[in-house]
Structures are given as C-alpha cells and as structure tokens.
C-alpha cells in the first residue's frame, strides 16, 4: 500500500494523523457546514454578522417550514422526480440493449458506432441546444416534461452505453458462445443470461443517472418555461432572486435540493463510485 500505513510509522505520526484527519475534513466541508449553520439561524444573527458563533436561537424547523410555506418547494421536488425517474428508466433500458449489441457481436460497425456514442456523450450542450429546441417545438413537446425527458434520455444513453458496453465486454464470452451452440435465440440469451449478470451495472448506472438528472440545471432552464414545471435546481436559483439577502432561507432551500442525491450516494456508494470511474480502473 502506498503511502505507508501510518500504523507502521512512529506512534507520533500515527496519532498525529488521526488528529489531523477531522481537522482537514472540517476545513474541506467548511462552506457546507457554514451554510447549514446559516440555515438554522434567525435573521437577526445574519444581520449582526454572527456566522460561526452559536445561533442566538435554533430556528431550524421554522426556517425550513418557511421555505416550504412561502415557495413551491414541494412542487419543485415533485417535478424533479417526474423528470428524473422516467429518464433513468429509459436511458438505462436502452443502454442495456445497445451495450449488448456493441459488446457481444463482433461486426464491423461495432467499434465505430461505439465511438459515436462516446463522442456524442462529450459534446458541449450548447451545440445541441438550438436544434433540440427547434425540434421539440415541431414535435409540439417544447416546454413539456416529456420533451425534456426525451432529450435527457437520449443524451444519457450515450454515457450509459459506454458504461454498459465496457461492463458486458468483461463478461465471460464462452457462456454466450455455448448458449448459441445450444441453439438459444439471441433475445433469450440477452434476457435470461446476460441481463441477470449485469445487474450491478444497472444499479450503478441508475444511481448515477439519477444524480446527474436531479442536478441538471441547464436543460431544465432551456426546455421548460412555466414555473409550474420547473425542477428544484431551477427553483432554488429563482429563490435567490425572491429572497434577496435572506440567506437563512436561501441556504435552507439549497440544502433541501441537495438532500436526495446525498441520500442516494450514501445508499449506493459502491455503485456510485464504480459508475464514476467509467469502468476504467476496475474495482
């Protein structure tokens, strides 16, 4: 293991390391902690510049309740969910079949088409923006949730295919080969043999895409216009204008928007990290 484990070094280093660890973490998460403290303070503390001290009153419930009462926080959250969940289902399902085609069959176009998915996944959003708006308009789904979901699902299919294909490529090919010799139909091989084997990849992708879409801001701003349809990221942004300088409310709302991805991350940490490394560093 590198660097040398502290247990094997002098006791001074060992204890020093254990002491310094929480301090480093504190500094690293300072902005987050500070914003949490702000979110439970009364207004008066903010105006008198009490940033780090103990709040003069603990207004946690009050502040968060105000956010829910004064804004459409619930509806923003619900909107995010009805955008996120269909996107995850469609893109992961599509990636399973496209990834299967690109990983298992050795046809001439397999690699070039795979590269199309990979390259498309990395293009800047701005080059897609205007044609996508125009097309959605013509399909009469601009400024609707399905319109946004369609785009998200299509775009995320690129990343999901990249991931799925690499995952399936690592499966033992002999299994599929022998099933073919037995005369099993290609669809049955996919459904009964490959799909159960890629369950971990499906889990990893679902968690990851959920977080990506939950945190999306750009496309929601571009594709949705009615306030009633906006997701939480855009909602929180607009609160910034509504609650001018009411930092205790802005910070409470921001933290609320961050909660679901954080829960998702803690529930499925292993999958999440496996997904982020693009399968490049296996393990």
């Amino acid at each position: 293991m590198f660097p040398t484990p502290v247990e094997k070094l002098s006791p001074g280093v060992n204890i020093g390391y254990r002491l310094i660890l929480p301090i480093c973490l504190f500094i690293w998460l300072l902005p987050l902690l500070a914003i949490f403290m702000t979110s439970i303070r009364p207004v008066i503390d903010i105006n008198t510049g009490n940033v780090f001290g103990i709040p003069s009153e603990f207004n946690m419930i009050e502040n968060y309740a105000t956010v829910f009462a004064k804004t459409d926080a619930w509806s923003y959250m619900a909107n995010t969910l009805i955008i996120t969940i269909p996107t995850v289902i469609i893109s992961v399902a599509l990636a399973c079949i496209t990834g299967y085609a690109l990983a298992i069959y050795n046809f001439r176009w397999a690699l070039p088409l795979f590269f199309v998915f990979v390259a498309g996944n990395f293009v800047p959003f701005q080059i897609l923006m205007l044609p996508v708006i125009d097309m959605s308009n013509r399909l009469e789904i601009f400024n609707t949730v399905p319109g946004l979901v369609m785009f998200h699902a299509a775009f995320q299919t690129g990343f999901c295919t990249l991931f799925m294909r690499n995952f399936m490529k690592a499966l033992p090919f002999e299994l599929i080969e022998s099933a073919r010799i037995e005369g099993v139909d290609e669809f049955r091989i996919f459904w009964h043999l490959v799909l159960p084997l890629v369950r971990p990849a499906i889990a990893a992708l679902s968690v990851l895409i959920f977080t990506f879409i939950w945190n999306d801001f750009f496309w929601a701003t571009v594709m949705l216009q009615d306030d009633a349809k906006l997701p939480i990221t855009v909602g929180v942004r607009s609160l910034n204008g509504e609650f001018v300088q009411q930092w205790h409310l802005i910070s409470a709302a921001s933290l609320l928007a961050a909660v679901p991805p954080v829960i998702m991350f803690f529930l499925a940490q292993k999958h999440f990290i496996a997904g982020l490394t693009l399968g490049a560093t296996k393990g």
Partner: protein
Amino acid sequence: MTEHAMRLSSKYDTETKPVAIGTAVLLVCIVFLLTISGTGVADMLGYARKIDARVPTFLLRMFFLLVALAAAFIIFTNTSTYKRKRVAYAPWMFLSVGLIFFLIYVIIPIFQSISYSLTRWNGLYDINGKWTGEWVGLENYRVLLEDPNFTTSLINNVLWLALFMLAVPIGLFIALFLNQTVAGIRFYKSLFFFPFVISQVVVGLIFSWAYNPEFGLLSEIWGWFFCEQKVNIVGNLTKVCSIDPPSILGEAKYATYAIIAAGLWPQIAYCMILYLTGLNNVSPDQIEAGRLDGAKGWKMLWHVILPQLKPATFIAVVVTVIGSLRSFDMIATMTQGGPFGSTNVLAYYMYDQAVGEGVGRYGYGSAIATVLFVIMLCFISVFLWRMYQDERTER
C-alpha cells in the same frame, strides 16, 4: 426427405402465424399514428385548447410507435431471412432504437447547429411554417472576431481550462492523504467526496454566500484580521474595518477566479475518488520491489505509483477538461456573466446570445457554440484515439 432433414429445414422457415398477427398489429398502429391529432385528443379529453393536449397526444403517439416497433421486430424475427443469419441481423435490431434516438437528439443537431451558424435567424417560422432566416455565409464568424465579449469569453475559457487542471494534482494529493486504513477512514473518504454529489447550482449558491462581503463566510474571516467590533453612538455593536472586505463577485478582476475556485471544490472531489480507486489497484508486489530497491517518498510516487495510476490520471484529465468547458451552472448562479461580461465563458455567452435577454440570435449563438465544439473536438479526438489504442491491444 427424411424426418430429420424436414425438421432442419423447417427450423429456418418463416412462421406464418406470428407474422400474420404482427402485421395486423403493425397496420392498426400505423392507422392510429396517422389519425392521432392534437385537436382530436383535446376533444376526446374535453380540453378547450389543442395546446393543453400536447402531452397526452405525444404520449399516445409514443405508445403506438413502441407497439408498432415491437410488432415489426416480431415479424422480422419469424422470417426465414432472420433465422438463417441471426448473428448478422441481431445486433442491428438491438442497436436500432437506441442508435436512432441518439442520432436524432445528439449527433444530427451538431450538424444542424453548424449550419445555423451560417445564417441570420431568430428561431421563428412565419405563419405558413416557412423558415424566416437568411444565409449569410461566414458573416457570424467575422463578427465574432470583432466582438470583445467573445474574446473575453475565450480568454476566460482558457483560464478555466488551465486552473481547473489543478484539480488533478490536488485530487491526487488528497487521495494519497486518505489512502490509509485507520478506523473510520471509509467515512472520511465519502465525506470528502460529498461536494461532487451536490448540484452545481447549490455549490454556486453556497459560494455566492461565502463570498458575500457583508454577511458571508469570507467577510467573517476577513473580520478576524482587519476589523474590530465597536459600540457606536446609539449603543449598537458595529464592525469597523481598517480595509473594507472586497466584493469578490462584484469586481471584474477577481470574479472569474472566484467562480473557478468554487468550481474546483467538486472537481477535486471527483479526481480524488478516481485516484483512490486507482490506488486500490496498485500492485503491492511492485511497491514491495520498489522498497527493496530503496525507493521512498517522492521517488516511489514518481517512478512506481504514478505509472500505475495512468488510467486514473487519464480519466481525471478527461473529466476535468470536459467539466471546465461545460462550466455553465456556476456562472449562471453566481454572476450571470457579469460584472460587465467579465465572467462570460463561451458556454454562457452562447446561451445569453441565443435565448437570453436579447431577442434570440440563433445564428450568432450557433457560431459561438461551433467554436466551443471545435475546441472540445480536439480533446474528444485525443480521448477516442486513446480508447482505440486500448481496444486494439485487447483484441
């Protein structure tokens, strides 16, 4: 013919029953797809206006499209053509839906955008559905060269790219720091990763507050050094500072750096996790061998560890480059390109020109997007080239 040969040949025959059913379903779906109209659905659901029925109409269309697709697949898989050459046709069937979807929404729009960039257009059609723009050739690109905002954006993009790269070494450093086995280290690792999980909008808001000169984190820290609490005439506590805290986001000199610093926070976390995974896979034998050869500290890191971390470094560089060129959310939440356009980057400036406050300049915006795309394409090519090399060695 013997019984065996009969069975063999019938294995490849077209099966008429499923084909007949499939064809019937397909035809019904096509009829429905052709007849569904927004007005019809609106009437059926009792909506007053066609526009209210957009979503149900669309969902209905998608449903019939999917059923039609399924029917088509069933027909095809029961024909003798498919049965004879399964392995040749099957990949295309698996690919078709995903590929078409991806082409329509991602690949074709790239070329459309490039063609828009050669026009002057505001995104509208006239009442007959005719395009209202005009072709202007390379005019938009000529204007770009003279646009000071474009130059600022380009310079800022380079700044983002260069400074964002700091995330890679810092991430490596933190990963090395955390690669230990003391009790509770897993917990520390996940908490260090935390900033990446949070939406960039929220990170932007957190830092807008932190940089706030009156109430923010920075003003507080500034106060420890330059300010003291005094009681004023009325008897209230006020802060008196020898030097006033700077309004970081309000000053053109600092604003971009401040946003980049905020953006680095989650990016460092991402690079850190990549390196932590990489460090997990470094072979212990080689470390042992290095130790026997007397390699220690930096030498060990440089000659033994880093070469093995190459895949992690590569991914870290790729995601950092992409992250820096995609920077949009942070700028939109923290400064909206201001003050005086000083924090614009191509991504934000394009958005601003095309659908922002000014009336849509689709052509001009597309030209900006094309420039951004070309920059990105250089990096994408390198990435694809590397992947291609890896694929070749694997075979």
